[in-house]
């Protein structure tokens, strides 16, 4: 994310009054819309701390708070910036309804991975920068009238990669949902399986899909939301088997990386290749849903997909 250097500000001001007058009154109105999320302060960008962000796509300068309040979507061109897992959860569930699961679970360097950098130091680095213990946050919360088992990945943690902890947290979440008769919603953002855990990471693909097999057998809905990016090992497992597969606009979604494909096939990739729009056209995803509408759309889909369960409950079954 680009941050301008000429508007340096004193640190720790993001929760207080802006030090610089914002450009339009319109943006000021946006500040009042939503109270600041106490439990999960927005992730601080690495360098340098700024008040303004330049949109990657349209280049418009916007006030950070305006971007935060718009769920990290550019108000002008609708470019979807990455959003931290906790911020996203906050935007999806009813206030105070989310109970996080398995929060103490942490990755271990099972292979004692020796290489250009150690796995342990990478983990420490990302724990610090994201204030997360690994690349997914799971728990049960209420969305509209439904309790849902919600898993939200965070691309900021080691590229959202799936190792044992991501696999285990999601598997427990899905199993809990199966046991409790709850729908599952997983918001993916991942470069794929985590190399540092070798074949253990690969097995998480089978583990999560296995748990979903039994969740599906219990006729419970699973909604998979693909965000930028959802690739490789994550796309080749739980992300691809939703009853409904939704995607955020412009998200990169696929199996192999575009550069790998280009070098393997020695051919030019079609325009828009591996974007959400491309995959909608090619029949993989059910709908593209902008971030701001995501909660309402998910709740609305659940109302349809839970009809069977509710009829069963009404019959006392």
């Amino acid at each position, binding site marked *: 994310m680009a941050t301008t250097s000429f508007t340096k500000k004193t640190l720790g001001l993001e929760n207080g009054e802006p030090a610089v007058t914002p450009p339009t009154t319109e943006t000021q109105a946006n500040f009042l819309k939503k109270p600041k999320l106490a439990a999960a302060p927005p992730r601080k960008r690495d360098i340098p701390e700024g008040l303004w962000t330049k949109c990657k796509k349209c280049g418009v300068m916007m006030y950070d708070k305006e971007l935060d309040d718009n769920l990290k979507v550019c108000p002008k061109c609708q470019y979807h910036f990455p959003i931290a897992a906790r911020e996203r959860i906050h935007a999806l569930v009813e206030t105070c309804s989310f109970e*996080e*699961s*398995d*929060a*103490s*679970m*942490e990755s*271990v360097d*099972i*292979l004692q991975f*020796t*290489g250009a950098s150690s796995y342990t130091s990478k983990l420490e680095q990302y724990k610090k920068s994201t204030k997360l213990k690994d690349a997914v946050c*799971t*728990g*049960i919360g209420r969305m509209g009238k439904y*309790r849902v*088992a919600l898993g939200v990945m965070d691309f900021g943690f080691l590229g959202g990669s799936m190792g*044992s902890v991501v696999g*285990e947290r999601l598997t*427990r*979440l*899905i199993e809990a949902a*199966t*046991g*409790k008769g*709850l729908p599952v919603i997983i918001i993916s953002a991942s470069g794929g*399986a985590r*190399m540092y*855990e070798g*074949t*253990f990471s*690969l*097995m998480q*693909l*089978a583990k999560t*899909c*296995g*748990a979903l*097999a*039994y*969740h*599906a*057998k*219990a006729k419970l809905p699973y909604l998979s939301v693909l965000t930028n990016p959802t690739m*490789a*090992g994550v*796309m*080749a*497992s739980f*992300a*691809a088997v939703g009853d409904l597969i939704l995607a955020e606009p412009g998200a990169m979604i*696929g*199996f*192999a990386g575009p550069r790998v*494909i280009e070098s*393997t*096939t020695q051919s030019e990739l*079609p325009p828009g290749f591996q974007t959400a729009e491309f995959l909608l056209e*090619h029949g*993989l995803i059910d709908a593209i849903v902008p971030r701001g509408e995501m909660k309402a759309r998910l709740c609305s889909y659940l109302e349809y997909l839970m009809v069977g369960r509710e009829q069963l409950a009404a019959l006392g079954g």
Partner: protein
Amino acid sequence: MKYQLDFERPILELQRKLDDLKKHPEDHSLSVSFEEEVAAIEKKIEETRRQIFAHLSPWDRIKIARHPKRPFTLDYAESVFTDFSELHGDRLFADDPALVGGLAKLGEQKVLLIGTQKGRDTKENIKRNFGSAMPEGYRKALRLMKMADKFGLPIISLIDTPGAYPGIGAEERHVAEAIAVNLREMMLLEVPIVATVIGEGGSGGALGIGVADRVLILENAYYSVISPEGCAAILWKDRAAAPKAAAALRITAKDLSELGLVDEIVPEPLGGAHNNLPDMAQMLKAALITNLEALKKHTGSERLKMRYQKYRAYGRFVETQKKTAGLENGDSSTNGFPGAGAI
């Protein structure tokens, strides 16, 4: 010309010496008889081979796993199995020659055989995409496996692929989805499934036909989340660091067995499977039959439960307190088989 691996060179040099001697018996040294000299060289070959194969690095083993003369699925279809009859097509788009399947007999047992298939030469490799399957391959495999499940045929899966094909068509027809669906559906097939990594176990492309009750691996095969070259390119910024990555990823049969990620190592004849197909086929056949017979002793639902638990157990992590939301009231369904508690 015979394809050779760098570390096989001393063996091949001795072999050449032996061939020369046999061609020109008059050249043998005067101090010993011709027969004695032949025997001495043969013994030396055997010793050298034993010496070399006792000290293979992970990278050496990956080279063996990729050896162009290594037996492929269709070689085993003819040597381990009898009456193999290939079945084609996913009934959606095409037939994928990189992932083959068909009916066959393993001893007396009728089975479904599926496996990824590389080409022996350039022409065949173009046809078979170097063993990298397309979405059609995974969908064909699933179609055949569901049929096998319907009619009670056990499934034998042979894995030898560098990975699913990274191509435009593969993405347009959603190879990731095809693999993911297989992972989910294979977990619910009631017939016994035995998967064996016979060469390369390349990531999701391998796992896509690899969810099984028993997972075997040949002594010189590997099974990895990413190719050593791919890992080296990302973590070392240099594909040439692949040997280092191969060691770090711990992807050899021995490593995987120690980590508990495979059930059994099938030994290869001295010098590797490419050196002796008949012996390799015999050893593989014995291992498949033993495992299949053991699985047949269980009911379908027992197998499903064990299969789920097997994959459920993969993963290493630490946690200071165990708490899964919504399960605080003594609900233990996360510890058990989800199918058992589900409606």
